[in-house]
């Protein structure tokens, strides 16, 4: 099961890999990283059929934002689940994300327990 994390902060990769160390080493999940929305889209488009099942994306990024990425993914790859991660836990971002078809909405700093529950829930489906 392949996940994609999109964030302009590159240290997110180290953090995710350590936090989900067991899940990764057990082969339960695979995680790929993209550092901008465009990079993420390119990655998705380069695999046919796409192997990523679930995207966790930051909203606040230079260039294309996470919300724009959400819209594009929903159009191009409707089967891929997308959840948003934002430092701005305001209602407006939340509403927009949910109405655009986001699966979940996480606020920074990321509570990895909740995130893991979400991943487990998705895997168990």
């Amino acid at each position, binding site marked *: 099961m392949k996940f994609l994390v999109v964030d302009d*902060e590159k*240290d997110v990769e*180290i*953090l995710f890999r*350590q*936090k989900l*160390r067991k899940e990764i080493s057990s082969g339960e999940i695979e995680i790929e990283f993209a550092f901008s929305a465009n990079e993420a889209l390119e990655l998705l488009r380069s695999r046919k059929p796409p192997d990523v099942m679930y995207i966790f994306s930051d909203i*606040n990024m*230079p*260039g*294309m*934002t996470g919300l*724009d990425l959400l819209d594009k993914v929903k159009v191009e790859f409707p089967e891929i689940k997308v959840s948003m991660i934002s*430092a*701005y836990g*305001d209602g*407006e*971002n939340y509403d*927009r994300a949910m109405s655009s078809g986001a699966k979940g909405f996480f606020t*920074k*700093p*990321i509570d*990895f327990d909740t995130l893991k529950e979400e991943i487990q829930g998705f895997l168990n489906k």
Partner: protein
Amino acid sequence: MNLIGDLMHSLGNYPKALEIRLSGLEIAENAQDSMALGNFNERIAADYLAMKDFSNALTHAKFGDLYGLQRAKSLSKYHIAYAFYHLNQLDSALYYARLRETNYLTQADIADQNLLLADIFEKKRDNKLALTFYRTVIPDARITYRPVLEARALAGIARYFQRAGQIDSALLYARHAIATLQRKDNQREILVRGENPDYHLSEISPLVADLYKSKGQLDSAYFFLQYATSLKDSLFNTDKIRQFQTLTFNETARKEELEQEKQAAQQRYQTRLTMNALGFIIITFFIIAFILYRNNRQKQTANALLHTQKEEIEKTLAELKSTQTQLIQAEKLASLGELTAGIAHEIQNPLNFVNNFSEVSAEMLNELKEELAKGETEEVHAIADDLKTNLQKITHHGQRASSIVKSMLEHSRQGRDAMHRVSTDINALADEYMRLAYHGWRAKDNGFNCNIETHFDPELPLVSVIPQDIGRVLLNLIGNAFYAVHQRATTLGAPLVGAPPYQPTVTVSTQKIDNQTLIRVTDNGPGIPEPIREKIFQPFFTTKPTGQGTGLGLSLSYDIVKAHGGAITVESNEDTGTTFTITL
């Protein structure tokens, strides 16, 4: 007075007439009455003529001619002519006689005039002409009832015949003349006209006597001689002559007195003139003094006013300076406010990492213990390496947060100068403030989406600047760029079918050209319209709605770059957008 004179004249009292008229002349002279002067002189000339003082007659007649009005002039010329006649200057007499303008002469005057001409021609021995004129006098004299003229004309004709040797004819005319003057009604008429019949009788009687003598009638001749003598005696008795001489003396004395008075008057006039001039000078002096005094007062008032105004202006200037300082402070605070949102995000991110990495490190220590218990040495090493990385990350993000706080504090600090210049990596500075600006803008408008491009020249040398100041300039320029692309995105509406959608883009680039460092901030916004392009660096100029901009951002940026010895320029196009270039 002339009338009384005329009366005296007609009574044969010429001296009395003269005396009265001379006093009249004095009054006229004092009164500067030129008409009266003319009239008196003319009458006086007549008086002198009557008394056979021809030179005086001539003098006064000339004055009469000079001062008098038309009639007085005419009569004066008549007197002049007669005076010359008696003085035997016949050509002068004829000249003056002819000067009289015949147009203005009455019929009576014409009779006078013709008699005058006749007399002159007779004396010039032009007998024929004299006879002709004497004859023309008679009818005019009769019509105008002037017996004297008639008698004198008759006497003239008589003299003509006497010279022609026709004694009888001469005697006839002469007796006729005497008879004319002797007639009672004629005598009254002559007196009324101010003349004396006795005088004319005394003039003609010797002629008659002469004629009788020629005829040998000596008793008749004697009679007429006696007659003439008695008449003359009564006319010019010694008393009258004395009276007349006294008068002449009086007149001379009066003339001297007049002369003296004239001199005195002239002296008085000169004195008055001097006094007037002195007075005038004094008054002028006072006026000038007054004007100077007033000018001085006005100047003082103006100076006082100017002084007050100067103080007011200085006070206002001080107030303005203090207001300006406050506004600049407000602008700094405003930009600090913009920063705060960006900073909040920028600090939150590293803090998140610090928290997350320390959490995950704690978890990993537990795992490390587990692996140690299992004796999995390789795994232990891997975990230890990760832990080391995590600690480095914690340090890194902690430092990142503290440097942001530091720059925030420095941003609002006052009174930086060249002492605070440090060799700065402009690329790093541009990148840092690009992010701050972006997050600040994002915090304000979450729906905002914008491409950010950076083209940093790796060859860029370190530049000695005050980083916070240049940072603020970048923050302003990049913030404006975001505002511009946002304006275009929100006002553009739906893109044309087939046209690529508008992609707001802000580019920050650096470049080294020769010894200069260029920083460019480019947007693809709506551009700056030509008319306001040169105003954008003016303080308080803003196109933003009230409350959204202080109008000091670019002004301060300009000042900061200038203080660094650099320049800030703008290129703008309404199709492609705007580029600000900082040259350091």
